[in-house]
């Protein structure tokens, strides 16, 4: 063998060394196994691009057998789950705005009378179309329901109504995003995911970097307090976050024409809450990780479910209950609702409050962990 060529034994030694190091770094190893598993589970089971059992409010001014059959038909389709019976349009609107329900089904007063007269009355379905993917299959199904759902009710003299055209009409109104433009949903979502990624990663490295460079020893020898270090490291990134958010919002508006129906100030305030939640996650990772590599991996570990379970990539209501439950824990889930709410629905403080306080609670819990885990010594 020549002296400066490729050496098989050197190569083998290198491989062996890498394996030893890999084995020593337990977390990396766990992550390497954990991440594919996590992906498999999330993609395989949690993600359902065909969301069913979507919460639906019914505003029925007609208590006829026909109306009841129609509503039963909705439920039987598997896409709709009647969660609310409302008495007024205002109430129904409010449910949609809050995101409590995905649909409002309105059956007019004279539904059965007109139906029997062959006047083909219309049932109105209002869908929260901020995320078009969440409603499209349900809408497609309901549009075909008028052909068959009343078959058994139309007996005797009414049997003639079974013929074409269908005995009643279904009108669908896609609220908040009438044209079903996916960018309306994706762009606010991107803002959330980009902020999550960068904020957690940057702060995740913050303390580990000090530890790795040896500057932590000097810092710890000074009278500085844990919270001072942590908040001190968080704050500069809030500025970075606003720059990012500003850019994305500008792009959303200029390039994609995403509307801003609500208040910009409210949006910016919500960004602050969301960013702080992410920064506190980052700083907590920073106190837990032994080195920068581990901090990066933890970031990724948090980021993945954030994208998959928050309703960014897949409709939230398309996920099984346990996945939704996990999703509710993530700040991104709530932030997406807030951003869509403010941008597309024109939500005000009252409407976004149910999604603000979980983020605030999240910050409190995570920061508590960070402060407790922050090592004041080099032990």
């Amino acid at each position, binding site marked *: 063998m020549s002296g400066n060529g490729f050496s098989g034994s050197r190569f083998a030694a290198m491989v062996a060394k890498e394996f030893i190091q890999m084995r020593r770094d337990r977390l990396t190893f766990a992550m390497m196994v954990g991440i594919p598993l996590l992906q498999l589970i999330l993609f395989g089971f949690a993600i359902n691009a065909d969301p069913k059992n979507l919460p639906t409010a019914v505003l029925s001014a007609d208590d006829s057998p026909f109306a009841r059959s129609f509503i039963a038909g909705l439920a039987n389709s598997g896409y709709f789950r009647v969660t609310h019976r409302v008495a007024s349009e205002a109430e129904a609107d409010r449910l949609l705005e809050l995101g409590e329900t995905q649909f409002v089904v309105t059956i007019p007063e004279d539904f059965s009378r007109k139906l029997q007269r062959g006047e083909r009355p219309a049932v109105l379905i209002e869908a929260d179309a901020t995320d078009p993917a969440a409603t499209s299959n349900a809408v497609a199904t309901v549009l075909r329901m008028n052909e068959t759902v009343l078959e058994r009710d139309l007996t005797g003299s009414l049997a003639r109504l079974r013929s074409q055209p269908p005995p009643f009409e279904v009108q669908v109104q896609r609220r908040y995003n009438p044209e079903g433009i996916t960018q309306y949903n994706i762009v606010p979502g991107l803002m959330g995911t980009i902020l999550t990624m960068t904020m957690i990663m940057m702060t995740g490295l913050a303390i580990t970097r000090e530890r790795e460079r*040896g500057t*932590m*020893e000097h810092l*710890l*020898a*000074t*009278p500085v307090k844990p919270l001072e270090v942590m908040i001190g490291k968080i704050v500069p990134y809030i500025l970075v976050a606003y720059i990012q958010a500003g850019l994305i919002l500008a792009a959303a508006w200029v390039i994609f024409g995403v509307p801003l129906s609500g208040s910009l100030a409210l949006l910016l305030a919500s960004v602050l809450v969301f960013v702080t939640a992410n920064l506190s996650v980052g700083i907590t990772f920073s106190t837990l990780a032994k080195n920068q590599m581990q901090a990066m991996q933890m970031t990724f570990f948090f980021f993945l479910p954030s994208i998959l379970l928050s309703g960014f990539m897949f409709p939230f209501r398309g996920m099984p209950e346990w996945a939704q439950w996990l999703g509710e824990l993530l700040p991104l889930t709530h932030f997406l609702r807030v951003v869509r709410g403010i941008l597309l629905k024109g939500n005000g403080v009252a409407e976004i409050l149910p999604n603000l306080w979980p983020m605030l609670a999240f910050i409190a819990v995570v920061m508590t962990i960070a402060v407790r885990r922050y090592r004041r*010594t080099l032990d």
Partner: protein
Amino acid sequence: MSNGYAIAVEGLTKRFSGREVVKRLTLEVREGEIFGFLGPNGSGKTTSIRMLCGLLTPDEGRGTCLGYDVIRETADIKRRVGYMTQRFSLYEDLSIRENLDFVARMYGMRGRRTAVENALERLGLANRREQLAGTLSGGWKQRLALAACMLHEPRLLLLDEPTAGVDPKARRDFWEQIHALAAEGITVLVSTHYMDEAERCHQLAYIAYGNLLARGTPQEVLEGSGLATWSVEGEDLYELAAELRGLAGITQVVPFGNILHVSGADPELLEATIAPFRKQAQRRWTPSEASLEDAFIHLMDSTRDNYQ
């Protein structure tokens, strides 16, 4: 303060994953004293110093630093102690001035700007103040770190090998400064591997493998070692050294330029062993003083016998 002692600890023990790195360390350092902390690499000097300033929690033992409890009152200690780490621990990506300013802010100093300016002047780095600390040479980094840890006028300085890699002139300046501070009543605990520096301390402590082996003034440590030393001048010293090594009663044979130091723990046995060599005409043997270095190396060798 606790009856004139800046540091008074007893039985400090530190374990890392079960291994005792510092074993029942008992130390008293009087105020205004320059206390030299010596010992071979890995003997636990840095670990001990970290326990004194609250950076590590002792597993056992108790004591005070500037009158504050080393376990419970670390915040008070940190405020009053200047700790210079062995490894450069200022921010390499901050400038000299920014680093000093940051340190001054950490201690909440009043008159920060003038303090930083004065430190820059004293360091002689005033015209390089905006240079990044990471781009300084090794010796200058040490000097900057030293200036940084003295910035807040601490009552006690814990210096972990402050002069490693520093040129002789700067080292002399440093020791003059240390003595001046001591005269003002500031206590200095300094770890070092340099014997000339050890000789400049009021008191010494020597630890090896976590055990405190010797304590006292340099003279006391020297006498305590009980080492007898002869120096040899003449020809073929290298060959002589090879012959002497391993003979009964001879523990060290060390060449110093044209002189050979031959030492042993038992003066009589040593004299008996070297008697035949002294008769050889080409070399001259004279009884001499053991150096501190001889004493420490002797201490080190004897502990290895005891502990391994």
